[in-house]
């Protein structure tokens, strides 16, 4: 992943989740650690897509349980062009 993508994704997540950027660690799980429900999650994916100008695959995005998995999906999607 480009440093730009990672920075953009984390900044977007920090804004949406109302948490400081430095608190967002890759191992944090959306549902269990961050209290994100399914409606919150579709919004998070939308803001991540807007921040990176990418369209993430629905099935793969739904399977991303933590921040690290979402960052990895962004990286994969970027590489696949």
């Amino acid at each position, binding site marked *: 992943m480009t440093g730009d993508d990672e920075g953009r994704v984390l900044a977007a997540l920090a804004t949406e989740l109302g948490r400081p950027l430095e608190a967002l660690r890759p191992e944090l799980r959306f549902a269990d650690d961050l209290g994100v429900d*399914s*409606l919150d*999650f*579709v*919004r998070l*994916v*939308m803001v991540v897509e807007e921040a990176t100008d990418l369209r993430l695959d*629905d*099935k793969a*995005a*739904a*399977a991303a349980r933590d921040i690290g998995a979402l960052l990895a999906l962004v990286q994969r999607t970027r590489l696949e062009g």
Partner: protein
Amino acid sequence: MLRVIRRALRRLRKSTTRAPAPPRPTDLQSTEQTNAALRAQGVSIGEGCVIYSRAFSTEPYLVTLGNRVGVSGGVKFLTHDGAAWMLRARRPMAQVFGRIQVGDDCYIGENALLLPGTVIGAGSIVAAGAVVRGRFAENSVIAGNPAKAVGRASLLVELLDQGADTLDSLHLSAAERRALLEARA
């Protein structure tokens, strides 16, 4: 003994005066009866719709539902704007109306309110309790008050499909479903 008989009679009276249960989605006949009754009121309803709401406003003929639309209980379709009341001094006969259109393959969650002029694109999901006005693109998740598009419905469908709480239980009887759910707890 007398007390036991009285109690049994009370129970019997209670069970016989209870309102009939709304049709279950698996009960095709009652679903079709409901849809036929709503069509007779003027609601335009496509094929394969399951509708638990009866609140189609005073102008039901202004509501159009596409094919395979699910409408939960408590959903309200409001086809007029009561704020026309404020015009009564200058235009005492004024009323304001608006059509409501829901595209194919949509789901409207419990207690959502759809206001006049609303157009919901195909494949969209309206979240429970949303207060919806305006035009929404296909494949939207629409939530909040005032409702906004918060993401893609196709993603929410994937989340549901992968969710641990999603069970293939629609074919079960109430007792079987209860047993299944209690065994999971």
